[in-house]
């Protein structure tokens, strides 16, 4: 038992300080200094020394040193006083919650886990088993923490009249004791009763059966031999002799009986005894066997010679129960059966479960039916071949397979499949009717919701749709979706497998495109049954909605590429209107140099928490976990910008007047015109200067004009840019809050020209159109100029590069070539060129300083265009430009072309 190593121990308590030899002994604390303090160092006052009272509060009052303050009543309209439910805990202090307080709040063993109320039998069983354990008393530790809550079974048993300590089962009559075979009186378990009650065992009195000690089937773990027993504490204390008889089949029977309270027969002297121990020197009895000596007399010689008269059912249960298996006996405790339950008359027979049949080896769980071969259709095939085909897997009829199951076939197809002739006579009930009756019937049905009865002029906007019945609504939707769609759009064939059906569907679609509302009924096959037709009607409508042309499906989301101002005006997404007003107003304010309120926008912006921390400033919005701008930030060119088109239009409409022409602020010519119209001397001067430079460039540059090309270029480029501008504007608009209209009125009422006063021009469409025409003209002019400049650059750039290569300083050369490379991919305000390039350029300055400046010149517009070009325009555009340039000069590289393209753009703006 003794453990060798220290770390196996668990130490409790505070160890004593190690004694030092030379240290003087501490003076004991005098009695009057031995005060009791609580954990906070306060003196513990004992009140009522005889009753063991304790102190609480302030001298056992609810007050404090300052006196007792009642809680103040606070209530307002916003903050109603909360109902105060005073609990006893509110009046306790921490001492009361402590370990020894009146309401300890610490973790302690609850009632269930305390050892006070233990299951007695289990306890004994455990004690018995502990005897056989290697270390006796091993299990007692477990008992300390074992929960002993009575289970449901125990509860039920109790209801049935069982009491603790009794066995389970019908009550039995006591049997007379029996003599053991070997003569010795081995008391059976539970012998205290039998010992005492033997004398009076009346016939009509039944006893509860004796309790059964559950057997703990635990594997033997030790290395000792069978039958080894360690030091028996019971015997060691009481000094019993070794048992007389060893029952190999019930090795613990005696010890058990002792634990059950078996009577002592003959007190022995004390002393430690056991198989592994000798006898102490003080033991006076010398004949006590020191070492275990076995004699055969202590063992049974006959197997099963003894009747297990005791209650140890655990060991001998089979025998006991087979003997006493009697229904009438069981019925003895009929009355004790729980309410609502009866004893079964027939014992339930065990259901024999037969194993499933074993599957044959080559069994496949999926079965495919062979398709029926239509032999009658195979003309010119010999009967033998037909037979073979029928037996075969039907390779020849795969097309019928593809059509799906037979439920997908209509009657005509089935008929064809079966080889029947078409029925003579009317195929529909309707045909039997008189024509006028049929008309009436159709109109009746139409009015019932399938079709709108009267051919109203087609007002096909979504908003104008009245909510019709479900089918009609779908049809209407399909109609609106398909109306006006190009025939080429229709590429998807939903009923490709069934050509006739597909043909009917296409007919229907075509009619839809023409806006024919009766198209559905007309395109259906009149030869089909009513049910088939209605089914097909549904299918067609659904398919037409599902596969409606994308133009209508996304028309609300996308704007088409426009080829001119007029088109842009008449259709397209009208999103950016009001936003452009804001930008235009800002632009106007900038032009008038009215910085301040007009050009200032303020948003709520949430810095990151960490950023505030790094700046040593408090978080301006401590509660919010949001970071950044509070407006929903949308992707610049996302489809979703357009998803809220209609609502934004509706909601944003009232406060501001509809705008004049929707121009983006990158629309240069417009701006220029505006500037020119304005009486601002500076801008006028500026624009005049620009015009001058442009015209000069016009003069100095070559003469070749390609109106057709520039026209094409304008057409192809413009919509893109417009669109890009519009989108961007639209996005910005979402972030900007519109200033009140009055403000704008106040500002712009004074300015005489019409272009800047947004409030005056309400919805003057004609004026708008009139204004936009000169703009187009101006633009063509601009593009002409740009084409010149491109030709200029094409002539200039090679010479520059050559000058670079001829430069002497190798380092400078390196740097400059690098910067040239850099220039090609630069966006935004560029960096100035390094020395060599400038020098080279300067040398050519007398030749065309204006031109070189133009070449290098980049500005905002150019930048914007470049960016947009990069993002929006695909390679197509570039290729087009390239082609154009190639006609000029075949040797220039793509990058060179790109650069030139940028220059073209730059020219366009100034």
């Amino acid at each position, binding site marked *: 038992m003794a453990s060798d190593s220290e770390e196996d121990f668990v130490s409790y308590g505070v160890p004593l300080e190690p004694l030092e030899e030379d240290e003087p002994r501490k003076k004991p604390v005098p009695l009057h200094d031995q005060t009791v303090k609580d954990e906070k160092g306060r003196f513990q006052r004992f009140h009522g020394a005889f009753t063991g009272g304790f102190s609480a509060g302030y001298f056992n009052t609810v007050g404090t040193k300052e006196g007792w303050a009642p809680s103040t009543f606070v209530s307002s309209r916003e903050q109603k006083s909360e109902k105060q439910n005073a609990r006893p805990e509110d009046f306790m202090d921490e001492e009361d919650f402590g370990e020894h307080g009146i309401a300890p709040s610490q973790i302690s063993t609850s009632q269930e886990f305390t050892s006070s109320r233990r299951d007695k039998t289990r306890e004994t069983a455990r004690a018995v088993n502990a005897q056989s354990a290697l270390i006796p008393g091993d299990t007692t530790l477990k008992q300390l923490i074992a929960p002993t809550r009575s289970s449901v079974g125990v509860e039920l048993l109790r209801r049935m009249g069982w009491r603790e300590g009794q066995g389970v089962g019908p009550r039995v009559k006591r049997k007379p004791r029996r003599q053991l075979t070997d003569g010795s009186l081995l008391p059976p378990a539970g012998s205290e009763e039998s010992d005492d009650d033997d004398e009076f065992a009346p016939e009509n009195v039944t006893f509860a059966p004796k309790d059964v000690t559950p057997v703990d089937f635990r594997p033997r773990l030790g290395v000792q031999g069978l039958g080894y027993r360690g030091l028996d504490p019971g015997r060691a204390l009481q000094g019993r002799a070794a048992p007389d008889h060893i029952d190999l089949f019930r090795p613990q029977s005696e010890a058990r009986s002792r634990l059950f309270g078996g009577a002592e027969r003959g007190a022995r002297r004390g002393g430690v005894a056991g198989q592994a121990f000798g006898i102490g020197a003080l033991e006076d009895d010398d004949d006590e066997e020191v070492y275990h000596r076995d004699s055969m007399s202590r063992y049974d010689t006959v197997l099963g010679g003894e009747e297990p008269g005791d209650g140890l059912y655990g060991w001998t249960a089979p025998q006991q129960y087979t003997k006493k298996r009697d229904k009438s006996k069981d019925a003895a405790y009929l009355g004790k059966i729980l309410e609502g339950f009866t004893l079964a008359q027939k014992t339930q027979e065990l259901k024999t479960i037969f194993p499933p049949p074993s599957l044959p080896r080559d069994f496949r769980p999926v079965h495919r039916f062979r398709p029926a071969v239509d032999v009658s259709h195979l003309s010119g095939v010999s009967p033998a071949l037909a037979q073979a085909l029928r037996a075969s897997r039907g390779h020849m009829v795969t097309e019928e397979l593809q059509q799906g199951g037979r439920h997908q076939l209509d009657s005509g197809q089935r008929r064809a499949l079966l080889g029947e002739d078409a029925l003579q006579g009317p195929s529909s009930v309707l045909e039997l009717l008189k024509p006028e009756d049929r008309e009436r019937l159709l109109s009746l049905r139409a009015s019932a919701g399938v079709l709108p009865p009267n051919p109203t002029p087609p007002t096909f906007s979504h908003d104008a749709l009245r909510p019709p019945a479900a089918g009609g609504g779908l049809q209407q939707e399909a109609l609106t979706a398909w109306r006006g769609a190009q025939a080429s759009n229709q590429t998807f064939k939903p009923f490709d497998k069934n050509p006739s059906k597909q043909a009917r569907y296409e007919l229907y679609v075509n009619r839809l495109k023409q806006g024919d509302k009766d198209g559905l009924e007309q395109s259906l096959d009149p030869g089909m049954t009513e049910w088939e037709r209605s089914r097909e009607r549904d299918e067609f409508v659904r398919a037409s909605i599902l596969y409606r042309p994308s133009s209508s499906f996304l028309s609300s989301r996308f704007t088409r590429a426009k080829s001119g101002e007029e088109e842009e005006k008449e259709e397209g997404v009208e999103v950016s209107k009001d936003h452009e007003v804001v930008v235009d107003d*800002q*632009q106007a*304010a*900038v032009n008038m*140099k009215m*910085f*301040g*309120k007009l*050009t*200032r*926008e*303020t*948003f*709520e*912006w*949430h*810095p*990151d928490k*960490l*950023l*505030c921390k*790094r*700046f040593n*400033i*408090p978080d*301006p*919005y401590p509660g919010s976990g949001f970071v*950044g*701008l509070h407006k929903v*930030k949308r992707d*610049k060119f996302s489809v979703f910008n357009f998803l809220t088109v209609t609502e934004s239009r509706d909601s944003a409409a009232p406060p501001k007047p509809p705008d004049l022409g929707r121009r983006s*602020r990158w629309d240069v010519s417009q701006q220029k015109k505006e500037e020119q119209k304005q009486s601002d001397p500076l801008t006028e001067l*500026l624009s005049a200067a620009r015009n001058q430079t442009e015209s000069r460039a016009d003069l100095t540059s070559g003469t070749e004009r390609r109106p057709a090309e520039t026209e094409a270029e304008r057409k192809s480029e413009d919509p893109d840019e417009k669109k890009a501008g519009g989108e*961007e504007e639209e996005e910005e608009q979402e972030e900007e809050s519109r200033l009140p209209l009055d403000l704008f009125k106040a500002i712009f009422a004074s300015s005489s020209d019409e272009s800047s006063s947004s409030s005056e021009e309400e919805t003057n469409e004609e004026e708008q159109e009139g204004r936009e025409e000169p703009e187009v003209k101006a633009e063509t002019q601009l593009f002409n100029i740009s084409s010149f400049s491109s030709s200029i650059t094409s002539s200039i750039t090679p010479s520059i590069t050559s000058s670079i290569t001829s430069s002497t300083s190798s*380092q*400078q050369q*390196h*740097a400059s070539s*690098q*910067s040239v490379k*850099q220039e090609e991919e630069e*966006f*935004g*305000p*560029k*960096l*100035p060129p*390094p*020395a060599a390039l*400038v020098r080279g350029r*300067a040398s050519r300055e007398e030749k065309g300083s204006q031109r070189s400046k133009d070449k*290098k*010149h*980049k*500005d*905002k517009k150019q*930048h*914007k265009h470049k*960016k947009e070009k990069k993002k929006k325009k695909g390679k197509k555009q570039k290729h087009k430009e390239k082609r154009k340039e190639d006609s000029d000069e075949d040797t220039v590289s793509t990058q060179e072309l790109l650069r030139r393209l940028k220059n073209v753009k*730059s020219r366009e703006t100034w």
Partner: protein
Amino acid sequence: MSFPEPRPQAPQLPQHLLRSIDCQQGAVRAVRFNADGNYLLSCGSDKSLKLWSVSRGTLLKTYSGHGYEVLDADGSYDNSQLCSCSSDKTLILWDVATGQVTRKLRGHAGKVNCVQFNEEASVIFSGSLDGSVRCWDTRSRRFEPIQILDEARDSVSSLKVAQHELLTGCVDGRVRRYDLRMGQLHVDFISSPITCVCFSQDGQCTLSSSLDSTVRLLDKSTGEMLGEYTGHKMKGYKLDCCLSSKDTHVLSCSEDGHVYCWDLVEGSLTLKLPVGKAVVQSLSFHPTETRLLTAMEGRVQVWGAEPEEEGDGDAMAM
């Protein structure tokens, strides 16, 4: 220092060329004073960043590690760290003494135009062609920015930090001021692409130069224009502007090879400093004294209010 204390009389202007430094690093993209004005940083197009002594004009250290030309740089308040940004879309945080790369910050989608420490050098702000401003933490080992300010619609060309405010100039023609303390973003529409923005020394005004060859002084709180300075030429290049150390003058680079210097209040041109024939790309004003740095092509010029007696100031003048 060799300069006398500023006198109560009329403010002086840096009109005397003290020295011209050939940086030997290609075109100098930006030139910057350090925090105390004793040193200067030159960002070269040959991917190097160089540290010079202003008073002697000697090269102190070369920092190489960028993959493309260096576009902007800034020094921390304690001169222990440098940060630089480059066309290779990265920022590098340098250790000044060893010249080692402390950290290389990637994340921008385009070339990084401008970079700036905050006052405590705990955050680096960088503005890029990709239209975003990123706030990088220098104290943690995180490689992601603390916050990305993507309000700009276009390339962020310039950026300044003062106390708790961040000022950005963008090619979309807007000057944005992020007020961290108030949690607000103020956007001023200028219309023309902004090339450079500055705070005034007193922190009440913002200066912005744009490609319409105009420098505007705006009131910070209201956005009203206080002054407009024209005459120079800034139409295509990203050139710098700045305020003098006493907020008396507005200075701007010009494409015609001059530095223009206007009186802040009157708006009149007081000095047209001829630097050279090429474009004056960058300039930086001394934080306390009357001293100016300009960069043209591969050279950096140091200008002072009075000619230096002992130094051979114009030895390398062009």
